[in-house]
């Protein structure tokens, strides 16, 4: 009996100790060359996320490539002598989070992993990360540095703890996440023709305009099939979704839910401001009338896409890619459809509405203690951005081959991109068309221009490129330019790692918020429950969070 006990205890101790095993890091003095090739084949272990479009579109077309073995792994091997392996490939972002958390809890980390500021904090507390400050200074190419800091230094600061840079941001465009009002203008025309005294405005400027149009879309049978089967505004269970969310309507009332905005020199949390209550009152009114879809709670991006494709709906809030998916699907069936992407409407006539956006990064690449070559991740990024946006780029091969239009860049495990690349491309296309010369177009702009040309030549598959970027087709980037020229972006002004109380409490407060807001909109809660929510929010940690956020805000001013 005693023997067994001793044996069991030894076993437990052994298991426990093996969890604490630490690998000593040794920094190999390199050649300090951002593009320097390793002498020997160097294996780097990463983790990555896949998605349905990679499997079904890209890999099925380029069937000699796989996630493990493709144009990018070849590029990295040729240019840098780096061989990439994966600890795991997650099927979607949720699975990635779960798998990474599991890997973290058993100390089984890859060389590099994409994490968020909260995970950086946790990993740093457990002394699992390598300080990348020196490596970043030495190895980041000029182009990578330019891309990363184009919108300011906050992306680097967010991953900096005690002066140590612990993660390299993987940039994307923050302004490309701005919301637009997508509206079906052929329906407006048809209703105005059938019923001239309705006199619908062609470009809604205010909430009232929008409501009027939505009501007409709902009741006036815009699809002309003689049945009452069309909706006003379509939205979904996730109130803050990128397609069919309601953030845009909150913004119309100068409410900025979920982000921190300065007022009187202090940062305030947008979700608990009186403007939110005002918006909720309006939304619940719209829900009662049926302008907001009665079944919104069970809708998802996919069901919304279906409704757009089958001509059931003509108003949706979405990002700049909404024309590519799902509206292009509708256009393939019905080329007479006309859509416009307008800037957000306003609650009163005289002002422009700001659209809220947050810091432009997918995440941060952190190097674990086990990493033998911490600079490798930076070299990989250098090579990636150079191959697509560098001077001697091969945009066609590494970003999107012209013949297929497939986003092959997704095959790379790391993909930072210049924040204003799309707007820049639009501006140069606009410039080229105004000056009647295509010679100035290079790289992405040239490629987009070619896609527009294909549409003009009659290939309907390329409609979304024209709707996106053709200056003569009232494109979405003209509205983006309007935002940009009038400084209509409301950034989240808290842009660093989450505070201590945020880590503990924010997600609960967020859940509670979504529950209350949904309830108020669909009438299962009364408008006054908003005040109770604000009290709860403050009591359950919001007050502490606000204090911490403002301590930080004071410290950077």
């Amino acid at each position: 009996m005693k023997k067994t006990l001793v044996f069991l205890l030894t076993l437990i101790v052994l298991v426990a100790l093996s969890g604490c095993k630490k690998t000593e890091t040794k920094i190999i003095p390199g050649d300090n060359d951002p593009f320097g090739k390793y002498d020997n084949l160097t294996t780097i272990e990463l983790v990555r996320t896949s998605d349905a479009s990679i499997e079904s579109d890209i890999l099925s077309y380029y069937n000699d490539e796989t996630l493990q073995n493709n144009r990018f792994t070849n590029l990295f091997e040729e240019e840098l002598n780096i061989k990439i392996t994966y600890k795991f490939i997650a099927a979607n972002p949720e699975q990635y989070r779960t798998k990474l958390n599991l890997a973290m809890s058993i100390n089984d980390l890859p060389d590099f992993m994409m994490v968020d500021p909260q995970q950086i904090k946790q990993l740093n507390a457990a002394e699992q990360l390598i300080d990348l400050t020196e490596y970043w200074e030495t190895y980041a190419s000029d182009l990578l540095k330019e891309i990363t800091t184009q919108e300011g230094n906050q992306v680097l600061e967010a991953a900096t703890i005690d002066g140590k840079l612990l993660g390299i941001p993987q940039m994307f465009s923050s302004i490309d996440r701005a919301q637009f009002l997508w509206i079906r203008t052929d329906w407006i025309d048809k209703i105005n023709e059938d019923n001239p005294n309705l006199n619908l405005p062609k470009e809604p400027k205010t909430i009232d305009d929008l409501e009027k149009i939505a009501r007409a879309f709902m009741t006036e049978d815009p699809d002309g099939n003689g049945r009452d089967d069309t909706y006003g505004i379509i939205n979904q269970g996730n109130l803050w979704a990128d397609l069919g969310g309601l953030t845009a309507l909150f913004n119309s009332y100068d409410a900025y839910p979920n982000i921190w905005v300065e007022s009187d020199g202090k940062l305030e949390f947008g979700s608990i401001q009186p403007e939110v209550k005002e918006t909720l009152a309006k939304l619940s009114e719209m829900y009662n009338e049926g302008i907001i879809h009665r079944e919104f709670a069970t809708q998802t991006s996919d069901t919304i896409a279906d409704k757009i494709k089958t001509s059931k709906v003509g108003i949706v809030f979405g990002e700049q890619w909404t024309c590519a998916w799902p509206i292009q699907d509708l256009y393939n069936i019905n080329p007479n459809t006309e859509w416009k992407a307008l800037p957000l409407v306003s609650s009163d006539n005289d002002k422009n509405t700001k659209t809220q956006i947050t810091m432009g990064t997918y995440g941060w690449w952190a190097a674990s203690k086990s990493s033998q070559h911490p600079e490798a991740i930076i070299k990989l990024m250098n090579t990636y951005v150079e191959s697509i946006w560098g001077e001697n780029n091969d945009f066609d091969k590494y970003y999107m081959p012209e013949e297929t239009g497939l986003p092959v860049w997704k095959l790379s495990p790391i993909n930072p991109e210049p924040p204003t690349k799309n707007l820049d491309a639009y501006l140069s296309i606009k410039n080229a068309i105004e000056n009647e010369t295509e010679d100035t177009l290079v790289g992405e702009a040239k490629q987009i221009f070619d896609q527009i040309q294909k549409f003009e030549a009659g290939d309907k598959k390329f409609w979304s490129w024209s709707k996106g970027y053709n200056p003569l087709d009232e494109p979405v980037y003209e509205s983006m330019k309007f935002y940009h020229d009038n400084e209509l972006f409301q950034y989240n002004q808290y842009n660093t790692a989450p505070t201590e109380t945020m880590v503990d409490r924010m997600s609960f407060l967020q859940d509670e918020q979504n529950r209350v807001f949904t309830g108020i909109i669909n009438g299962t809660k009364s408008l006054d429950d908003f005040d109770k929510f604000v009290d709860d929010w403050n009591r359950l940690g919001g007050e502490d969070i606000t204090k911490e956020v403002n301590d930080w805000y004071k410290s950077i001013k």
Partner: protein
Amino acid sequence: MHKSIRRKNLALHLMVLPAIILVFIFNYIPLFGIVIAFQDFVPAKGLFGDQEWVGLENFRFLFELPQTKQVIINTIVIALAKAIVGLIIPIIVALMLNSLRKQGLRSGIQTLIYLPHFISWVIISSILIDILSPSTGIINQFLMQIGIEPVYFLGEPKYFRMTLVVSDLWKEFGYGSILYYAAMQGINPELYEASDIDGANKLRKIWHITLPGIRMIIVLLGLLSLGNILNAGFDQVFNLYNIQVLETGDILDTYIYQLAFGTNLNYSLATAASLLKSIISFVLISMAYYLSYKYADYRMF
């Protein structure tokens, strides 16, 4: 003599060993994870890492969350409703089956009502979402035909619990009826013959012979469902609910799932909630066992 019994048992013990090892690995070793409920658990520090101990802080915060109380009420209401309906309806169906004379018809019905038991909730829920939709679903189309306003079964908080109970009943009543029906076959036919001689009618026979005859199995199934009172059906609710019906539809298991793997990823709180659930379940099962021992003379051990 003594030794030979032992050898015979040894073989039996060896046969049960793999099962015991599996239970030990998957049910007993994870019990050590309970410590997470008393820590501020940070995955990066590792399972055996230097975690911060916070005592009962997680439990305190759990009860501070506005939703927790509602979730517990939801769980008990839904599970109780399911247990009661799921006890009575199958008995009635079994009685009806029992009085059917035609063997072929009876096994046909048995197979038919038993079938949904084998379909996963993932599949059933996508079918239900389709046929219950207020605008396009067949049930509401029918309601509109006969002049009733369409009902949003899966989106209206006040209907959601009913939808859960009815759909669960539809899926599982065949399973229950077969158990009761089998128990009824065990009743001595002489009892019925004797009652015939005494001139008892059908209802009298059911009341005085059939029901007392299956009393043990009713108590057993009732006892098992009491132990499950805090399991209101994760698969079903998880696949059917949405943000609009959280008010009445969120149950402990889905709540714990969201705490651990949803937006929160708070393993400590999820473990605390889970531990709490286990403790209450344990108390309930003990009570149910005591009651059934006292009143129905039922013993498991």
